[in-house]
């Protein structure tokens, strides 16, 4: 089978862009509903259930409401940047989804269509570049509002996002080393070849990435830029109607992109676990599903139902992370600002650097010993990573990094106490 080319490729790309964009918007809309419903269940409430069956039309009602509401603009605001803020927040959040592969290639009469909007070779670098642009929207919006709370929120947002971008990028280095590439289709392929999702051989990188992703998306427990109880609502205090809605869409599409990215990098993307029939990758212009025992490429046979199945699996994995985001938000309290900075610079950064060294050494040793890239290779790395992860958790848990008020009180009052709760 040949990859699609020429005019058909242009047409298929346009169709993919339209479908992915509307898909992202739809998922974002329904994530807001899921957030409200799940938070309600967690708090023993019911949540929005009036518009349509089970409240399923609520996002549409919200959209109409936000379009019809009055747009207020503060008198002292800088008008250009006040309007530019939400646009700059939303666009980078939407375009990052372009490089995430979401299903196995689809065969059509004109050739095989990759289920990715743009399979650029610099995949993750593109995502890192654009997701860091998101902070411009927040900072511009907060500054242009001419409101001290909005400005404080924007400052916090920029400091936090810059700090955690470092840990985010460094935790990915281990993934780059194991996959040998920064292209996301290649990552999915490497996980299929390893017969092991990167979440296992690179468990500490996974953990660090998840924590950084929470900070990058400004979600609780890192929602410093909003911090309702401290800063009104932070950078979007002065925003109303559709402009507020755009900040909201930006936050949720950031969340969606982060979820899809975690699923792709660490949970095998659209790969179906314990199955090899879905594997597909362009190898020297041919779509293959793997290599035979003698190194001969085995041709893959793409089918529409395989595409559909893999899309479903990808949606499940992404949905798991979306629910996880919501679940964490409604459980954990907000960090204090200095704790956020301390965790970012004094814990995440050194840990990810040390982890890169450990993983690089382990891979070098495995290569020197002559272990082939495969399941055994992955298992050996899993063992090393497990030790690293346990050490990291032990270090965090021992009350050495984030001392609460209770800890300081105990130090000045050395009465022996029995075990905690």
């Amino acid at each position, binding site marked *: 089978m040949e990859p699609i080319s020429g005019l058909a490729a242009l047409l298929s790309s346009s169709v993919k862009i339209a479908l992915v964009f509307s898909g992202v918007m739809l998922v974002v809309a329904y994530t807001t509903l899921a957030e409200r419903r*799940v938070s309600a269940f967690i708090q023993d409430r019911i949540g929005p259930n009036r518009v349509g069956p089970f409240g399923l039309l609520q996002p549409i009602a919200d959209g109409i409401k936000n379009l019809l509401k009055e747009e207020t603009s503060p008198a002292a605001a800088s008008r250009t940047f006040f309007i530019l803020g939400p646009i700059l927040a939303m666009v980078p959040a939407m375009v990052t989804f372009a490089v995430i592969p979401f299903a196995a290639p689809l065969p059509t009469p004109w050739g095989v269509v990759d289920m990715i909007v743009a399979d650029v070779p610099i995949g993750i670098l593109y995502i890192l570049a654009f997701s860091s642009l998101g902070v411009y929207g927040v900072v511009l919006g907060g500054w242009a509002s001419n409101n001290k709370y909005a400005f404080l929120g924007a400052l916090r947002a920029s400091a936090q996002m810059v700090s955690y971008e470092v840990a985010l990028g460094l935790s990915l280095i281990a993934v780059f080393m194991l996959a040998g590439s920064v292209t996301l289709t290649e990552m999915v392929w490497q996980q299929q070849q390893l017969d092991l999702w990167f979440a296992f051989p690179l468990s500490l990188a996974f953990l660090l990435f998840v924590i950084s992703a929470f900070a990058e998306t400004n979600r609780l427990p890192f929602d410093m830029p909003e911090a309702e109880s401290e800063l009104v609502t932070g950078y979007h205090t002065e925003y109303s109607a559709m402009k507020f809605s755009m900040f909201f869409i930006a936050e949720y599409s950031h969340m969606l992109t982060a979820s899809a990215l975690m699923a792709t990098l660490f949970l095998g993307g659209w790969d179906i676990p314990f199955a090899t029939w879905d594997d597909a990758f362009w190898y020297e212009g041919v779509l293959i599903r793997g290599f035979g025992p003698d190194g001969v490429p085995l041709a893959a046979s793409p089918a529409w139902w395989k595409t559909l199945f893999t899309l479903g699996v990808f949606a499940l994995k992404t949905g798991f992370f979306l629910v996880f985001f919501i679940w964490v938000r409604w*459980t954990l309290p907000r960090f204090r600002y200095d704790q956020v900075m301390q965790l970012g610079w004094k814990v995440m950064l050194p840990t990810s650097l040390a982890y890169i060294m450990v993983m690089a050494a382990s891979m070098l040793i495995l290569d020197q010993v002559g272990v082939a890239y495969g399941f055994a290779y992955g298992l050996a790395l899993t063992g090393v990573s497990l030790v690293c992860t346990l050490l990291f958790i032990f270090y965090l848990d021992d009350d050495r990094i984030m001392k609460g008020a*209770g800890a300081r*009180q105990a130090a000045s009052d050395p009465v022996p106490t029995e*075990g905690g709760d």
Partner: protein
Amino acid sequence: MAITVKTMHRPEPGRTSYLRAAVKGMSLTLRHMLNPSTVTQQYPEEQTELSPRWRGTHRMEVHADGRPKCVACGLCPTVCPANCIRLVGGEDDQGNRYPIVFEIDEFRCIFCGMCQEVCPVEAIHVGRHFENAEYTRERFVYDLDRLMEQDHPVTLLWDPSDPAGE
């Protein structure tokens, strides 16, 4: 309505483990997420069962021929502590007394139910009903026709099997 008070056993100072606390909290919220034990009452669809002695909106009993049972004796406006009943009595050819004007201001009423207790002919009642929303304040002064139209159950200060209270 199972809302109970739970005593929290806080850990000893200096023995706080943030990770363990986070995992505990996550498991608690997960349990509620998967098994939502809601105490919310879906009001318009689900109605609270009112107590038999609930004292709500008034209601005037009528005879079989549609006349009000009220004999305009003047006891209810006299006993009313909120002074919310306005009664103007009249007399017909046979010498039967009847109310010409009978108005209850539901805003002034404190729903003590004394009008029902004092009524010698069991005409005026407080009822087991509370949904009285209106668009204007004037609509809250119930006149005689309005009181006679009410068809909700009445409060059980009055025993139907013993109407005269003997």
